[in-house]
């Protein structure tokens, strides 16, 4: 009974690729790449006590109505493309123009919309405001530390934020345009 010399037959691995392909295609289809991104917003806490009094000139009033039109300071109709530029001018006024802010640290942006304003228009306006702030913060970071804001360590970022706080306050919406 000399069976010990018999070789074991090899397993055919030819179909391995097919099986792997099948699995691969399944995962390819079901995969959703991680891309959680958006405009981060910190809501104000529930109101306790009187709101602080802010000087008129330090407030940039922006109203987006139910037709998605933008009105600035109750008198200027503005295109979306001009909004970032105007905001920058308002923040970096440093007391020069008597209708604009006293200093970047004192500037407040008051954003008001209608219940009928579209979400798309609202996001676009928010985006423009943030664009203005990000640009100014980057400029200041470059001047002070020679690097962009995002590249700075946290302690330096805090100083920039202190000089250029991003204060966007949102008022209760009007209901001229109506819901839905």
């Amino acid at each position, binding site marked *: 009974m000399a069976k010990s010399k018999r070789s074991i037959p090899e397993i055919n691995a030819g179909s391995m690729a097919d099986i792997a392909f099948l699995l691969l295609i399944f995962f390819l289809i079901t995969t959703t790449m991680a891309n959680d991104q958006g405009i981060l*917003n910190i809501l104000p806490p529930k109101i306790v006590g009187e709101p602080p009094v802010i000087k008129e000139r330090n407030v940039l009033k922006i109203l987006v109505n139910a037709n998605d039109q933008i009105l600035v300071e109750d008198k200027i109709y503005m295109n979306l493309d001009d909004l970032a530029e105007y905001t920058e001018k308002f923040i970096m006024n440093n007391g020069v123009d008597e209708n604009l802010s006293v200093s970047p640290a004192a500037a407040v942006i008051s954003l008001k*919309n209608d219940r009928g304003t579209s979400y798309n228009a609202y996001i676009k306006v928010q985006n423009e405001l943030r664009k203005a702030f990000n640009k100014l913060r980057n400029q200041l970071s470059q001047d002070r530390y020679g690097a962009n804001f995002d590249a700075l360590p946290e302690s330096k970022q805090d100083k920039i934020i202190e000089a250029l706080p991003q204060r966007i306050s949102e008022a209760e919406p009007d209901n001229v345009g109506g819901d839905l």
Partner: protein
Amino acid sequence: MSKFKSRKGKEMPGISTASLPDIVFMLLFFFMTVTKMRSTEVMVKLKVPKASEVTKITDKKLVHYIYLGEPTDRLKATYGTGTRIQVNDAFILKSDIPAFIETERAKMPEYKKNQIITALKSDAKVKMGIISDIKKQLREANQLKLMYYTNKKTSKN
């Protein structure tokens, strides 16, 4: 005498496919690791707006989603065409939002409870009225970190 031998009868050598499984397996493992199974089925028509000044969220576990929009064509007959709020797998009312936040908070360990982020995935056509109401409810629940979920738009300059 002829220098050139007739090629007739000779076959091209086949390309070895022995390493094909290895390559495919490599790809397979890549996709297996990056895949995150979609846990909820979105029941609203969703076309989120675009924005350029976005923040990326690195810790996915902190995020929970609120979907907002018109019910999909399949669900139109049952739920109508008005804007609906969806969380997890069901439509809810505005007034249910604080309870939803509370359940999300309960899932988190103690030290992370105040870091959770609400991501609002809303259709671009939704009116701000309902979004204001949702924001009010979130403030009611003391959930102040809100992210407007957007797609990336490359800025012009």
